[in-house]
């Protein structure tokens, strides 16, 4: 597992209190991990701050797994 994925996992675990071992790459945040929209926006805000990026509102519903959000943070340009 690479450093970015570890960082991402730690941010999500800290906010959601989901145990790290449950944060598998393809676990669906909403269906499998019980993350609601309020936790989701906290995660989005934390990622924007950490990586100095802007995650457009339209993209948020499509970022549903650890793998997707890790890839997303790698490809977004800094603001």
């Amino acid at each position, binding site marked *: 597992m690479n450093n970015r994925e570890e960082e991402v996992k730690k941010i999500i675990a800290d906010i959601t209190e989901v145990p790290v071992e449950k944060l598998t790459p393809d676990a669906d945040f909403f269906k499998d991990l019980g993350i609601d929209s309020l936790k989701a926006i906290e995660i*989005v*805000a934390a990622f924007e701050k950490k990586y100095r990026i802007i995650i457009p509102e339209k993209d948020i519903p499509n970022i549903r797994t650890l793998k997707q959000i890790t890839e997303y943070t790698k490809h977004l340009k800094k603001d």
Partner: protein
Amino acid sequence: MKWDKEKIKSILPHREPFLFIDEVIDIDGTEKVVAVKNIKENESFFEGHFPGKSIMPGVLIIEAMAQTSIILYYVCKPEIAKTHPNYYLGKVKAEFLSPVLPGEKLILETINVKIIDEAGVVDAIARVGDRIVAKANFVLGIKKSD
């Protein structure tokens, strides 16, 4: 841009004695809203908090900042706010630094961290003059009215 109480009441569902902002004194695009609550000598909460030693309860400073956050939501999402959705607090992290006393002007500054249709993250500072009395971070939920 300034808002009086009538304009505030057109957006906020709160009413006296649970309306904790008197006017909006600054709106900076969709980034920041600043509101004011004038703390009167005869505020009802001073009767019990505390007899003979009036101090504004910290939870009501939180409430005033949260109500200002709703105005911030309105400037970001006016079309949704005009439908009068239900607003609720999801999470609050707060720090209280100084008491708020009768006769003081409480200034409430809210900063947009991230606001989307159904939720928001807002940083807030409450101050009296230059004295910061509280800091908070809110996660707000917004749901359409039934």
